């Protein structure tokens, strides 16, 4: 069966590839939105920490002989701890200043992290093997489904939805949302807001680290993999707006699929299609699809 001259299996495999990318967009923009909500900081180093997560998995598996599943837990924890350290020692000092300084600080951290990994691993890519349990592919009849890709999409979706559930439906999330609205008042109720901020930042970048581990077996692990991705994720955030958690997830996945479909019909444009969508959204709905305009 063909759709506009493209065989269905080829089309579906590109959609799946788009979903994989979209899952990464969703996880990263979700982390950015959570961090922005509480810290008012756009975390430029999000991409670099995603890269650090992928390298942590690579180092854990090749150097220390740990397996993928252990690193799936350890790498995000390590990235999260690093993030909490950064928040405690650096970001906290900028809290009362213009938001631009947070962006500039995290940009500097990005250069620092990329430079550090570059001086050790160079610019050429490393690869990580797909774990045995998820190797191979399943024949669905209408298409061949690589197991690992299915796992990436399922795992990221589960993590995103769990995050959404915790933030929107539990008492913990209610405190968090209250802290976003009015930190002074929440503090007056006896909540340790500075600790909450630290933990939130740690969680947000931990998500980036987790995305990095999930990505490691399907892409080339290079020191620059993060910054190329973060610029696209910024566009995703501009499109979706950072007001809504569910909005960030949906926008991320949808743009991944749009990118995948573009690769089928017009491959040259697939690198820029997200930016083109951003331009269209800015023209038609300047506040973003799910955004409430804030300063």
């Amino acid at each position, binding site marked *: 069966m063909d759709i506009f001259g493209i065989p269905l299996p080829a089309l579906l495999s590109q959609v799946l590839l788009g979903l994989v990318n979209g899952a990464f967009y969703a996880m990263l923009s979700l982390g950015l939105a959570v961090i*922005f909500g509480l810290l008012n900081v756009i975390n430029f180093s999000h991409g670099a920490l995603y890269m650090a997560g992928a390298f942590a998995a690579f180092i854990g598996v090749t150097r220390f002989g740990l397996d993928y599943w252990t690193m799936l837990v350890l790498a995000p924890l390590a990235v999260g701890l690093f993030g909490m350290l950064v928040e405690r020692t650096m970001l906290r000092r900028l809290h009362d200043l213009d938001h631009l300084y947070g962006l500039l600080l995290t940009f500097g951290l990005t250069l620092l992290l990329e430079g550090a990994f570059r001086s050790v691993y160079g610019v050429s890519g490393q690869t990580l093997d797909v774990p045995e349990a998820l190797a191979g592919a399943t024949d669905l009849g209408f298409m061949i489904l690589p197991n690992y890709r299915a796992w990436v999409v399922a795992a990221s979706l589960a993590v995103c939805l769990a995050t959404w559930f915790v933030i929107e439906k539990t008492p913990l999330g209610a405190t968090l949302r209250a802290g976003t609205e009015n930190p002074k008042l929440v503090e007056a109720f006896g909540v340790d807001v500075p600790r909450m901020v630290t933990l939130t930042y740690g969680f947000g970048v931990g998500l980036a680290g987790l995305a990095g581990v999930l990505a490691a077996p399907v892409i080339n692990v290079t020191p620059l993999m993060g910054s190329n991705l973060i610029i696209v994720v910024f566009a995703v955030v501009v499109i979706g707006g950072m007001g809504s958690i569910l909005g960030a997830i949906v926008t991320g996945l949808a743009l991944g699929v749009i990118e995948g479909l573009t690769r089928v019909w017009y491959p040259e444009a697939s690198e820029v299609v997200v930016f083109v969508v951003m331009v269209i959204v800015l023209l038609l709905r300047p506040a973003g699809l799910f955004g409430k305009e804030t300063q």
Partner: protein
Amino acid sequence: MTRKIVYAALLLAALLAPFVGYPVFLMKLLCFGLFACAFNLLIGYAGLLSFGHAAFFGGAGYVAGHALAVWGLPFEIGILLGVLAAALLGLVMGALAIRRQGIYFSMITLALAQMVYFAALRAPFTHGEDGLQGVPRGTLFGLLDLGNDLVLYYVVLAIAGAGLALIVRTVHSPFGQVLRAIKDNEPRTVSLGYDVDRHKLLAFVLSAALAGLAGALKTVVLGFETLTDVHWTMSGLVILMTLVGGMGTLAGPVLGAFIVVALENKLGDVGRFLAETTHVEWFASLGESVGIVTGLIFVACVLLFRRGIVGEWAARFDAHAYRRRADL
């Protein structure tokens, strides 16, 4: 009075510099100085953090280089075309980016500049990864041979000086005052009846055009243009230059540009020196680790040194300037 003496001394130093230093390196410093000042016009006076200025710098460089190398146009026309291209690009990017404020503005400029980067990577006339090579310098008005480093130096000095003068004039004009008002309190500026968007857009186009002038000049000076100039790291570098020198000061960005460019060029030497004196092998590779060093300076500046060199100096010795900039 002291001010006049300082300016006269600076002018004299600029005129005599090519007899002491290497003219091509000095011209590169001038180009980056102008680039940083153009960027500072936005962040320092209108409070807009553009993360996409590489698009104008590199974009104009490609257009000017193509006009000179392929179309064989004279120097003046080539530079002018580069500036026009940057201004036009600035008009489009600015019109889109000012639809959102604050942090979103920065993200939009970054994303749009990334589009320009991909365009430069794929377009045939930029020669992709190889870059645009062999850009001739030509002659100025058919009279002055720009192939001579010394002649070109004075031409670049004059053009960069004119660019700086334009920025100084803009900052002190009524238009510049409105920009400052927008930076300090945008809603109030709106309620005073100013068309904030039009002011922002005009500032953005002016900044883009001047950044383009710097990029076009740099292409002619070095004779080539590569993807480095349109990459986001270049946008980051110009932010660093401005931050090191002092945002919102007139002299700061020039000083910052000199420091950052000199540091990039001499980092290898510094590393080798450190490796020899301390016997730590790692320092020898410092030349390849520009990212680590620039990243460290970035973090240190933001945490400890937000006013930049000129800003700190003004805060210490000029109480009036300190009060004005107390918001930092």
